[in-house]
């Protein structure tokens, strides 16, 4: 029995690290979003992100409760015979069942299968600063890829799963806007360059109008500030 609880505690600690990584990932996404929100409006993205971070915190809280019970039982095994600890033992029993179910076993709040936890920890990376639309796009694409990989880590029953799918869709919408911005910048440069070569003034004026329209469609480049924090 003691050995089983020891194994459970180990698995729970790994889940704990995975949830902490997910919270860190949520913070990274927020660090992307805060400067981006000054340029690209996407209220759903913020909602999904907050939901994701909130869900990760709830899961981490549940996880810490389970770790506390497991640690307490390891250090004081005589507590197992106390009737008031029966509900906590039942919770650990559920974790044990989920562990035995395999990768996508029954969903237990605060617990992730060790293999999934390991994948999650490996996936999360440090974000970098961006000084052009191209860098923003590359960074967001990398984040989106991580979200895509995270989606495959979570069974559909897990509360984080659907939020991740929503976040993925939201990132697609943002990267589409950025792609359009890249096109506008590129075309604008070409048009300005080209209008200098246009011989007839009537045509030059016509192309300047297009350049003005492109200029109006430009969004300010998000500025990444070190101090950006949740509002």
């Amino acid at each position: 029995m003691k050995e089983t609880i020891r194994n459970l505690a180990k698995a729970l600690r790994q889940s704990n690290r995975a949830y902490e990584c997910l919270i860190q990932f949520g913070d990274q996404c927020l660090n992307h979003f805060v400067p981006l929100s000054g340029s690209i409006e996407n209220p759903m993205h913020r909602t999904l992100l907050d939901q994701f971070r909130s869900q990760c915190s709830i899961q981490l809280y549940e996880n810490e409760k389970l770790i506390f019970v497991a640690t307490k039982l390891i250090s004081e095994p005589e507590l197992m015979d106390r009737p008031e600890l029966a509900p906590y033992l039942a919770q650990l029993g559920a974790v044990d069942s989920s562990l035995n179910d395999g990768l996508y076993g029954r969903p237990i709040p605060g617990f992730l299968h060790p293999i999934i936890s390991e994948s999650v920890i490996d996936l999360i990376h440090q974000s970098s600063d961006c000084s052009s639309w191209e860098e923003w796009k590359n960074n967001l694409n990398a984040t989106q890829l991580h979200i895509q990989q995270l989606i495959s880590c979570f069974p559909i029953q897990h509360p984080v799963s659907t939020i991740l799918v929503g976040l993925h869709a939201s990132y697609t919408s943002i990267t589409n806007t950025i792609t359009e911005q890249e096109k506008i910048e590129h075309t604008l440069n070409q048009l300005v360059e080209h209008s200098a070569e246009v011989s007839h003034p009537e045509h030059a004026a016509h192309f300047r109008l297009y350049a003005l329209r492109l200029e109006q469609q430009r969004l300010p480049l998000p500025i990444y500030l070190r101090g950006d924090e949740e509002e």
Partner: protein
Amino acid sequence: MDIDQIKQEMTDAKKHHLDTLEQLGNIESPHLDGQVRSLQYSIRHAILRPIERAEYIIEMIEQIGIDELPTFLLNDWMEELTKIKNLSGGYDNEGDHS
């Protein structure tokens, strides 16, 4: 939209209208002078200028790449090229109209 076809049609139409302008320039008749000038102005501003503009647009599309153009601009330019296609179509057999 077949850009090469439009380019060919524009070349044919341009040649036709430049020939017409040349012929109009050769008319030496004081009582037709006003009509000739009006016709020359119409050809230059209503036909040749839009064709030249379309040539620039095609040049830009080819230079930038159709997939790299912002959506709204591509739609605008395609509309402009459609107008030019209608304006410059049917001149392929009009080379010798003397």
